């Protein structure tokens, strides 16, 4: 009995030592990871900061103005270009633009007639036949 207890206690001792060893090295490993991560965060923050500065450098108003003047036809907003809603003229009745186009092409039927094309088709053919 006594020997058994001794063996158990030795095993427990080795076990706890192993456990402590693992905890210790895990701690070291994780604290290294934390330090690395912190470093990376600092580097990222610096990079973000640099990029922000660069973004602003490229978007600085005088550069944008020079680019706009040389590459676009944009002009500064003049007072004359601002109008009230009620001053905007109502859109003129431009008629049925698509219908007019179809008419110009020579097809007199309305859109509803076009749907029934199969029925309507023979008609012009007939007239053609009659003509000669």
């Amino acid at each position, binding site marked *: 009995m006594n020997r058994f207890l001794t063996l158990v206690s030795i095993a427990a001792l080795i076990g706890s030592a192993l456990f402590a060893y693992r905890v210790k090295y895990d701690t070291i490993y994780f604290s290294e990871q934390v330090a690395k991560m912190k470093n990376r965060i*600092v580097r990222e*923050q*610096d990079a973000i*900061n*640099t990029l*922000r*500065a*660069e973004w*602003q*450098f490229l978007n*600085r*108003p*005088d550069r944008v*103005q020079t680019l706009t003047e040389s590459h676009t036809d944009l002009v*500064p*907003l*003049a*007072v004359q270009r*601002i109008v*009230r809603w009620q*001053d905007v003229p109502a859109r003129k009745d431009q008629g049925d633009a698509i219908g007019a186009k179809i008419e110009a092409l020579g097809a007199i039927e309305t859109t509803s007639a076009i749907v029934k094309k199969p029925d309507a088709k023979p008609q012009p053919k007939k007239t053609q036949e009659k003509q000669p």
Partner: protein
Amino acid sequence: MSNPRDLNEENRPHDDFLRRCGSAIASLFKMRIDKSGGRIIFVGLCFFSIYAIIGTRLVYLGLKPNEGQAVRAHTQESIAAVRPDIVDRNGVVLATDVKTVSVFAEPRRIIDKDEATELLTAVLPDLNANELREKLGRKNGFVWIKREITPKQQQEIHRLGLPGIGFQPEHKRIYPNGVAAAHILGAVNIDNIGIAGIEKYIDGLGLAEINSLGFARQPSDIKPIALSIDLNVQHALRDELFKGMEKFKAKATAGLIIDVNTGEVVALASLPDFNPNNPVDALDPNHINRLAVGVYEMGSTFKALTTAMALDSGKFKINSQLDARSALRYGRFKIGDYHAQNRVMTVPEVFIHSSNIGTAKMALGVGVEHHKAFLRKMGQLDRLRTELPENAEPIVPGRWGELNTMTIAFGHGLAVAPLQASMAVSALVNGGYLMTPSFLKQDGDRRAQATRVIKPETSEALRYVMRLNGTKGSAAKSAVPGYFVGGKTGTAEKVIAGRYAKTRLLTTFMAIVPSDKPRYLFVTLVDEPQALPETYGFATAGWNAGPITGKVIERVAPLLGLPPRFDPPEQPFPVMAKMNAWGSKP
């Protein structure tokens, strides 16, 4: 000694003593259970106290911060102090820190100084070899080789593998917008210490102390400073001023936009200006901030102050008659009008025709002491202190007599900073609240906290006469339709060698937008504009400062969120209409 008896007698107590000592020593090693208990406790206590001392010392050492490292970190950081970012009122970056690397040497640790010099100059060709050799030859522990090198150079120097050469990460101040708002931002030196403008102001806030304690390691540790400036407006203002300066071949121009209700400076430009990325330029005397550091005789724009004083004193009403039929004589001096009307005029007429005679008579009417007290109340006689460290003392006449009051009434004989005059005019039109201009973003209307300097009716009268000047007077050329602009021009002859020079003018224009309920005050200053064919040979403010301001207003108003109005406001000046003021009926 020869007598044996004597000897025996002498020896006996000695023997006794030896025996007793011997038994005491023997008893020391004798283990007697009844007597040793106390001793064991004593020894135990000794050991316990020794271990307790060792233990407490260990705990103490464990808890104590690592001093050596802290000192090192501190010295590293203080080399280039961390500064907060500066952003404009919309959060756009105006100044920020970026990381750079500087290379240094520890001469005592360098083995072959000639070789080190040779290799370093090969990588950094702009270094002077002789100077570097001399630097490395010193007995210092530390010398800078070059500040702010590129990452590529750092790589190359690192590859040289020289002992005693090291790199130091540093913060470098960057102003990505270049010249925009240069006078407000100021500049920093190579150690990132503010030397001008808001940068210097930030240091005054206690940043230097924070840095020296090593609290701020990262720019993100400090909150950015939000200025009242709007970068887009600032750029538009500078651009228009630049065009105006070229057009009128002026020596300098300056412009200012103030929110009259909050006292915030929305834009401030003074040309010629400098690029804050190159701090040496900031110290050029030609690059001063003409609005805050320059003091000028403001000319006719000062008449707004005199008119307000006269109306506020109650001695003059809006329709009071002033005789401007002939020049005003005082001793051997004669005061005449530039746009002489030679008739009796009411106060609004005096204002729109910019009559020196009429204004001088108003000032004389209220008296010298009242005039002085009023100008002091309006902050015109003392140095104006804003966040910017650069400011100037107004030039006030030592002996202030009636003649001084007469000339100061129309803006001569008292030189003030234009920013100071703008502060006063803002107060005249915003309902009478005097606020020190601020370059930092404010939360909303500050009028409630401000001191009232004139009555609201007087303020309305001032807005009324300024608007009248915008429709009928000298400011008409700058009145952009739709914004209900009012303003006052001012043309002052510069003093050259103690005399007023007829051809060297300083023209100013102050405009309020919109006149019925002002939100912004626009100020333009042109130093020595030249007359052009299209200005018919005139070089007065109405022909240069006025139109420049008009262009600024037209361009900037949409940016500031000022909507144009198509119908003039109904009853913009109710009190003036009730008083049946001159010009209120079409």
